[in-house]
């Protein structure tokens, strides 16, 4: 059931007298946090109170991605219970609606919000609940704890802009290469990645056309995990490489086929049914491996060492609707 909620301003409480954190209300959902947990509560359609609890650090890591990616493509499951679906002008927020058991028990709730409203609420929640010293984009070994009572904030780290090349990284006027001076030192796990630039021999006047860059060096200097950038663009074909370490903080259910090309090291993926979460497959990816994620699945990756993953997306604005209408298949290829 999709209830449409009228636009309202962000509804935030005063800071809690003990924990120091504000609570937020979005439609029929309430979000509050304490020293260890984020608590989500709602009322079921039959009028019963229902609630869900997540570790505060995991919740903030998921919230960070949802906010930074503008609700991404399709489903951003924070865990097996709560998440969002991007409807591109609006966003569904749900609890239990894509959990087979909870859906069947009819204790789920899904409400639709104007994108601006849920974005503003999530941004304020992320900022209020993230303490100094905790960076939700960093690998767990590279940041402090999310736990405890409210202490300071980390606004700079939770408002990073997404790095999106329009044509190709390193071209004049496009996304710049990363360097020590741009605040992007080489990550400890990529200290052995060669940094030399490609040899370029342009004829005079072709300096911006004869162009190549060291993608692996670019990625070795990523300060974040599980956060794709755009590095090259062909029409709506986006190369979205990213550096991955530990667990993808969300379970992504795409509304289109998406492809993964593992460029070094390895990631293990759990794939499940998009609507129920029922397990479907494990996908073990090593350097050079390519795999598609069918549009009917949700997936979550586990990267034992920081690794380079090329996420390859078709960003066509009509694709999700073509899949819904059966005009584009849910599986990548028939053979």
């Amino acid at each position, binding site marked *: 059931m999709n209830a449409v909620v009228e636009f309202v301003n962000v509804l935030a409480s005063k800071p809690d007298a003990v924990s120091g954190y504000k609570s937020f209300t979005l439609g029929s959902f309430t979000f509050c946090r304490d020293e260890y947990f984020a608590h989500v509560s709602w009322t079921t359609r039959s009028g019963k109170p229902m609630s869900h609890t997540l570790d505060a650090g995991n919740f903030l890591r998921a919230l960070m991605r949802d906010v930074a990616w503008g609700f991404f493509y399709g489903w951003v499951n924070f865990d097996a219970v709560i998440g969002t679906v991007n409807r591109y002008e609006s966003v569904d927020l749900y609890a239990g609606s894509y959990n087979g058991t909870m859906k069947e028990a009819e204790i789920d709730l899904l409400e639709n919000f104007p994108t601006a409203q849920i974005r503003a609420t999530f941004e304020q929640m992320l900022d209020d609940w993230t303490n100094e010293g905790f960076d939700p984009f960093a690998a767990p070994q590279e940041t402090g704890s999310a736990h405890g009572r409210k202490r300071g904030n980390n606004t700079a780290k939770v408002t990073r802009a997404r790095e999106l090349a329009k*044509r*190709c990284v390193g*071209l004049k006027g496009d996304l710049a290469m990363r360097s020590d001076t741009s605040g992007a030192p080489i990550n400890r*796990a*990529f*200290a052995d*990645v*060669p940094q*030399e630039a*490609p*040899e*370029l*021999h*342009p*004829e005079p006047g*072709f300096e911006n*056309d*004869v*162009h*190549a*860059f*060291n*993608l*692996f060096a670019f990625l070795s200097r990523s300060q974040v995990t599980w956060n794709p950038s755009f590095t*090259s663009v*062909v*029409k*709506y*074909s986006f*190369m979205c490489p990213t550096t991955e370490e530990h667990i993808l903080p969300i379970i992504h259910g795409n509304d289109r086929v998406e*492809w993964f*090309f593992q460029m*070094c*090291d*390895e990631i293990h993926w759990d*794939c499940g049914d998009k609507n129920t979460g*029922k*397990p*479907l*497959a*494990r*996908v*073990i*990816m*090593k*350097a*050079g491996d*390519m*795999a*598609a*994620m069918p549009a009917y*699945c949700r997936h979550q990756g586990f990267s034992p*060492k*920081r690794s380079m993953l090329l996420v*390859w997306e*078709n960003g066509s604005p009509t694709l999700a609707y073509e899949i819904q209408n059966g005009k*584009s298949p849910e*599986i*990548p*290829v028939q053979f």
Partner: protein
Amino acid sequence: MTAPKYHTKFGSLAHFEKGGVQSITDDVKHYAFSNCFDIASRARPFEKIVFGQNQIYVLETIRAEGNSPWYTCAHDEFALCMDGEVEIHLIQLDADQQVRDQTKNGAVLVIGEPRGQPMGWMKIRRGHQAMLPRNSAYQFRAAQPAVLIQQTCKGELSIERWADICQTA
């Protein structure tokens, strides 16, 4: 205390390890699982083997070995080197040799010798990604076998042999 030392594991034609799909209840073919080094090790030079596709868009694995033909394309393309060393030579192609239908997807062979102003060349190694600007002519040159991943649209030179390259069971 010293910081732990990490070893970044890349693959190559000479040495690669494949993972795979471990099915629970699903059809493994739906994941179109392959490996670029495996594909390139069994390919002829400069076959453009599609190993990722999404509507009109593809990623192709190319075994670069020797000199390729000259190609041109009406849209930008990109080549990422995954193993070895490849030179890319570029010519600003005369208008009459460019792709006539500028909405055409994918690379085509240049008919005859490419004519136009030389734009220069570049040499890419593992991890380097090169732009192949629209309406230029380009040629790959590799003294030793190398592996390229090309970001492009599916075209008349794209080869599909999914059953040969993908895990099927």
